[in-house]
């Protein structure tokens, strides 16, 4: 009988969901989760739809304060998308607070109007990527591919 470890060590088997440990167990397919922090209702709907089309369970909130409140309850997200313009506390401030909470989620900043100053402010605050709106499915797909590696 063929050794399971030979089958399960090969990359294709791992991609098919078999554990590399050789025991033949299926790896549970990870369900990614996302939080969209954007007060624009159009962007909320579109960003949520794009993420869900990639199999990402998504919630949205309309302000940085709401995002921090939600995260403080222990809610965990693999990806957090943050807009620049938010009521009361802008996206950069929100990002700083999120990182100060010790949250290691992948943070993506999104803005309708790109400029270097904004990009620097967001990156300094702790986002992983800075994207000019609109968020598009191809971009999300490439981020998901990276995260699945």
């Amino acid at each position: 009988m063929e050794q399971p470890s030979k089958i399960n060590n090969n990359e294709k088997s791992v991609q098919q969901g078999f554990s590399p440990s050789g025991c033949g167990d299926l790896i549970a397919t990870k369900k990614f989760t996302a939080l969209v922090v954007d007060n624009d209702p159009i962007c909320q709907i579109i960003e949520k739809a794009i993420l869900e089309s990639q199999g990402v369970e998504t919630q949205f909130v309309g302000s940085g304060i709401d995002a921090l409140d939600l995260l403080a309850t222990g809610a965990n997200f693999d990806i957090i998308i943050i807009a620049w313009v938010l009521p009361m506390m802008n996206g950069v401030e929100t990002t700083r607070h999120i990182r100060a909470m010790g949250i290691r989620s992948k943070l993506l900043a999104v803005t309708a109007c790109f400029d270097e100053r904004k990009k620097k402010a967001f990156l300094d605050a702790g986002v992983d990527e800075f994207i000019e709106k609109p968020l598009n499915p191809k971009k999300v797909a490439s981020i998901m591919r990276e995260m699945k590696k």
Partner: protein
Amino acid sequence: MDRNKQHRQVALMRQSLFDQGLLDEQFVQLEELQDDANPNFVEEVVTLFYRDSARLILNIDQALDKSPLDFAKLDGYMHQFKGSASSIGAKKVKSECTLFREYCKAGNGEGCKRTFQQLKKEYALLRKKLETYFQLARQVGPVETACRRI
């Protein structure tokens, strides 16, 4: 008119929206999000955009009537407007938003007012064309294969 002819008419109408520069690739991305569970997703989002942005248009109109102009406030409104316009693929509207913001940065009130008038024209034109397109597409029903040419 037979069904094939109707589908061709819808396809041509759709293509003209891209050829005239009214829509960009983002619109196609939204169409690709449509499925059996959400067959009218794009139309619903566009409808919501026009409903929601009416408030912003009014805010900007009122802000442009004030003297002196508050360019920071105008810029803020337009930033938001540009975000949602670009999210539905409204290419010409988005360009006017960018131009408006440049005039805001330059403190050019006349430029802002002129650009805003043009923006409203593009906004209204796109709305009319999309309404016609969606109405015809609904009448004709879905095509069996995707028509992605842009």
